[in-house]
């Protein structure tokens, strides 16, 4: 038999559980809102007509001034509020020197001449798809025929070369650090680990001078791409961790058969390492796509800009078209989001690998 006291306790327990669940859901939703809403805002802004971007007070959905036909021509519609008179909805057909001419669209003979400032535009929801086209073909520097396609192409070239460079250089290095026994290996590996702590500022200036003054590589993507062909400490570290997990017996068997280390590396180890190679491909792509300082330092002419630098360049100008800038940002972000949805697990596994293997 259950006493009344236990029942109350049980009820209280249930109530607390319920309350806990409600709070949990609220918190999860609140945070989801925090993470998601800025992205939605980016997308909404990308669709706003130019006149709507800085409208006050702010509206979520894109709006445009309503146009109305008066005697075969389109004019913007206004609410005219002259002091001491009832407001009227009229089309504005002319404005000069602070004076505007409004007419009643239903009765064009009804003309009102007054100060332009008394009129307030009438708005209607409008998604401006054309922003995306304008953003991609925007020619801020007409003489150079540079637009976002150029930036997209430059970013892609750098990303692909960086992926190739990282794969062909870091993989053998990681093999040399994990599956071949040689004196001094561990000490050198410690050096490699230590370089990961080195702030980029320490090497930035000599490298800049080396690439631009000595090698004359200024204003090209070589200073960004070429170093990727010389191994990345982080990727070598990741690959080494993976290679160490491959059973020695498999390699020894091949060695007994007289296979060279390169054959073992190429024919046995690499085929086993596809997951980690995929991780490195994705992360190198992310790095190259995101990199800002490298392009900022080395790329001078807009025809060489990457998307990251091109966007910043656009934003730093004195007349920022925020709708187009947001449209360009959406295009900039989209490849990564697509990649993420295709390779969600590789992403997550890669992050776990990089974030937990101290």
């Amino acid at each position, binding site marked *: 038999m259950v006493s009344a006291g236990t029942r109350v306790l049980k009820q209280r327990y249930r109530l607390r559980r319920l309350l806990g669940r409600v709070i*949990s*859901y609220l918190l*999860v939703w609140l*945070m*989801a809102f925090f*993470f*998601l809403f800025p*992205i939605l805002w*980016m997308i909404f802004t990308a669709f706003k007509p130019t006149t709507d971007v800085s409208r*006050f007070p702010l509206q979520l959905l894109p709006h445009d001034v309503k146009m109305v036909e008066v005697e075969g021509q389109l004019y913007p519609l206004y609410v005219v509020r002259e002091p001491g008179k009832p407001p009227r909805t009229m089309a504005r057909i002319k404005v000069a020197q602070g004076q505007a001419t409004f007419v009643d669209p239903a009765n064009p003979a009804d003309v009102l001449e007054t100060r332009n400032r008394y009129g307030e535009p009438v708005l209607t929801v409008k998604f401006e798809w054309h922003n995306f086209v304008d953003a991609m073909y925007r020619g801020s520097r007409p003489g150079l025929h540079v637009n976002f396609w150029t930036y997209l192409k430059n970013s892609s070239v750098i990303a692909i070369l960086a992926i190739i460079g990282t794969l062909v250089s870091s993989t*053998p*290095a990681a*093999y*040399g*650090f994990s599956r071949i*026994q*040689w*004196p001094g290996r561990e000490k050198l590996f410690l050096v*490699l680990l230590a*370089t990961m702590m*080195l*702030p980029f*500022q*320490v*090497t*930035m*200036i*000599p490298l800049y001078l*080396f690439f631009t003054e000595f090698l004359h590589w200024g204003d090209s993507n070589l200073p960004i791409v070429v*170093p990727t062909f*010389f*191994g990345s400490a982080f990727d070598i570290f990741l690959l080494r961790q*993976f290679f*160490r997990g491959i*059973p020695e017996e498999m390699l020894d068997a091949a060695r007994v058969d007289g296979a060279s*280390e390169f054959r073992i590396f190429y024919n046995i180890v690499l085929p*086993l390492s596809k997951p980690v190679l995929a991780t490195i491909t994705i992360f190198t792509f992310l790095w190259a796509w995101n990199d*800002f300082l490298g392009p900022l*330092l080395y790329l001078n002419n807009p025809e060489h800009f990457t998307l990251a*630098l091109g*966007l*910043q360049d656009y*934003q*730093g*100008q*004195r*007349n920022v078209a*925020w709708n187009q800038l*947001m449209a360009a*940002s959406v295009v*900039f*972000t989209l490849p*990564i*989001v697509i990649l993420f949805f295709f390779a969600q697990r590789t992403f*997550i596994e890669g*992050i*776990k690998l990089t*974030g*937990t293997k*101290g």
Partner: protein
Amino acid sequence: MSTSVASKTRGSGRRGSSRRWAGSAYTRRNLLTGLLFISPWLVGFLLFTLYPMISSLYTSFTEYHIRAESDWVGLLNYRQMLADPRFWKALYNTTYMVVVAVPLTLLGSFLCAVLLNLKLRGQSVYRVIYFIPSIVPVVAGSILWVWIYNTNNGLLNTALGWFGIKGPSWLTDPAWAKPALILMGLWAMGTTIVIYLSGLQDVPVSLLEAAELDGASWLQRLWHVTIPMVSPITLFNLILGVIGMFQYFTQAFIFASAQSSTAVSGGRTLGAPLDSTLFYSVYLYHKAFINLKFGYASAMAWVLFIIILICTVLLLRFSERWTYYGEEG
């Protein structure tokens, strides 16, 4: 897959087998092969790390001229740095970010991971939503947040207005510029959330159940079981966060260049407002590439390196007290 392969080899005495072959000819051949395999990195290390390090250390003792011989000035750059109020301002701002932003990010990520680890419906969707901002490119994200922070017409202040709160002037008020950057950083903390989430999933259920049987409340379990179990993750990400935050650059650069387009100032915006976003790397960049003081900038870089080294060593030293490595560690 990787873990199953790894577990097979654990403790099978690899060292012994290689020692069996130990012979000088073999060792030499192995050394050559090994060096050959690591040669891409080795060349890269000498060319792109070691040489620039030595070079920048040397440059830090000179007054550098691009088109002429540089003058050896001894410690002058370092002395000027100590006397430069903007250097101290930059160091302060950066330290502020390290001390405030890094722990906040860890705390925020941990709490979000805890939320995502609860048994709620639709968690897989929420996990994606929490993660997505972190893959938005930093430049695009920063531009987006400049837009969100817009004072009267921005999303944030409009939203605050609905609750009757008069939002601050995020980008032009020196007191709010750094919090604005921090909030933006929290938005993009998805990767750390993922790391914590995987850590939470690795916490043995048996431990939590045992604690529950002992009458520990949810909070007590969180405090006494979960947090110690993920402490290695916390340490690792704390160190990475500190190293990264000392080099904070791109976001601040974008925020500053956003202001050059506004009407307030004729392009004189570095560190604006009132040097409140003048971070170490930004000032260093300015000294090097705007003022052409490569010697001074190199000296700044080395001071930064030493600061980072000291911080890392201190963190590792003091972490022993609060980091739990299980039986294996």
